[in-house]
């Protein structure tokens, strides 16, 4: 039982990164209708920027987080100009191919700049004020502070995002766009700036996830492939465009994977999610939590 709880806790940690990556992906899809296959690369870039900021530039952690947020948001800005602005009046396959090309280009740019060897971020938690005072033992569960930081950040960021979506003017225009783009435009929503904001927010969330995870797992140029696929799994399970659904499905996927690798086989860990997603797409294409709606 104690081990079971430990596995669940590990699942929550990985699941939290899935949530961070998937929420951005689902926003970009739900609001703009862009299927962004380059989303995993935002994560990868976040990881590398974090490593450069902390290991090479010796920045304090909070400043490094700010740098990662800024850099990832900037990448999102550029991605919007490539994937959405020129293609928005065309059918969806165009942005699929284009984002796929962007993903391949970014991976290989990273390969040339950072090299193929996996790298890791040495996050010295003892220097972070609040975090270092957190306990590492929760009953039978042991969680180093680097790991605790991930669900913590996820809850804070998703909470902020939720509040922004719910209570601010920007959030209202985002939701209006998601409901009906044309009517939103008629009501005076600035479609182009909403698109840019969506991409920047999505990219920043994925970038933070990449940075935080790089203190536990390695970062390498194609790390984003697997993460993007996991995020798509989460987005599909939660229902395309459904932020709350993505949050629940992300945690569920993380826990399922952790339990699979503990009780079934470690090699089945990555496969289980994809099998799941193909089944969901076949039998419940609106997602586990989505309402059934006709698709054109």
């Amino acid at each position: 039982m104690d081990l079971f709880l430990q596995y669940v806790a590990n699942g929550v940690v990985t699941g939290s990164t899935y949530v961070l990556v998937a929420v951005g992906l689902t926003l970009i899809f739900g609001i703009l209708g862009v299927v962004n296959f380059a989303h995993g690369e935002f994560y990868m870039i976040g990881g590398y920027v974090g490593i450069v900021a902390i290991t090479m530039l010796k920045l304090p952690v909070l400043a490094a987080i700010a740098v990662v947020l800024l850099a990832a948001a900037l990448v999102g800005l550029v991605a919007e100009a490539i994937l959405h602005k020129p293609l928005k009046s065309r059918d969806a396959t165009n942005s699929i191919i284009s984002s796929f090309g962007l993903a391949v280009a970014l991976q290989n740019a990273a390969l040339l700049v950072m090299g193929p060897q996996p790298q890791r971020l040495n996050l010295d938690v003892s220097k972070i004020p609040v975090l270092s005072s957190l306990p590492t033992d929760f009953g039978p569960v042991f969680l180093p502070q680097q790991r605790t930081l991930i669900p913590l950040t996820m809850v804070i960021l998703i909470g902020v995002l939720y509040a922004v979506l719910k209570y601010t003017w920007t959030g209202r225009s985002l939701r209006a766009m998601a409901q009906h783009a044309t009517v939103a435009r008629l009501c005076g929503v600035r479609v182009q700036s909403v698109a840019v904001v969506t991409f920047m927010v999505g990219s920043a969330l994925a970038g933070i996830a990449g940075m935080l995870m790089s203190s536990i797992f390695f970062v390498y140029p194609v790390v984003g492939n697997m993460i993007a696929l996991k995020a798509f799994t989460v987005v599909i399970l939660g229902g395309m465009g459904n932020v709350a659904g993505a949050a629940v499905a992300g945690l569920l996927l993380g826990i399922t994977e952790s339990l699979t690798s503990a009780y079934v086989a470690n090699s089945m860990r990555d496969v289980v999610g994809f099998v799941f997603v193909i089944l969901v797409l076949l039998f419940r294409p609106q997602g586990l939590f989505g309402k059934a709606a006709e698709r054109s």
Partner: protein
Amino acid sequence: MKPYLIGLAVALVLAVAPFVLGGYETNVLMMMLFFVILAVGLDLVAGYCGQFSFATGAFYGLGAYTAAIMSRDLGSPIWLNLPAGAVVAGLFGLLLGIPALRLKGHFLAIVTIAFQTIVYLVISQWTSFTGGQVGVSLPNPAPLTAFGVTLVQLGSLRSYYWLTLAVAVICLLLAWRLAHSRLGSEWIAIRDDETLAAAVGIDTTRGKLTAFIASAALAGVAGVLTAHAMRGVTPDDFTIWISATVVAMMVLGGRGTFIGPILGAVFLVLMPEVLGRLAEYKMLIYGSLLVLAITLMPEGVIGRLRRRAAR
């Protein structure tokens, strides 16, 4: 008659090429032929039938591993592996085609990427059967014999190149006939308007499944040829980057134009050879080309030329 004559002329030029070129150049040409088969195969399902697949690399790998594992466990020769690779890849194509019956656009794209990843994970982790990361090595292809008489030696690079060329020509002929058959017209109808196609009595289920099978079987054939040419297979030869490359070839050349993907394959395989030291940036260039092509010229080079000619 004209396309056949041009095809024949090109095939003849390619057949005499090894006499003029060195071993390295012949190898490059052989690589080019593999990718021509892959790109034309993808064009059948994505260009003609409109079902986007990012799983070409997976079918390519399935064909290659079929050849490698059959040679290892059964000692089967290449002329048996070729149809076997096509059948195995084709069956998996059918498997992937089934979800495609219900899914469109991005959902389908995600499923094909998931399929590609599952195949990669299985071949790289099922060590007892596929050799894991080390892969499987193959002996020299045995000579083609009939009734105890040796017909063709396949051990040398040149003879293997001719075999590849012959198989490629057969594949392209088959693909051409398919694309211009009644079935090919049904694929185009499904691509252009699936509801209308179903309404005029086209069996869209059959249409989509056949397109997936044909595409996968061609990739399987290319896989068998590659496995024997490389004398072995490793999982990293069949990643999603291969799928990306083939998609780039098809999109650059022109979806659903038949000749477009062929030219795309020729261009993208020969380009790194011309680039010299810049060849390191090959995948970076492919990715950027894909973005540029879809933004500026989504119908591809051949598609653009044809539209201009039609005006």
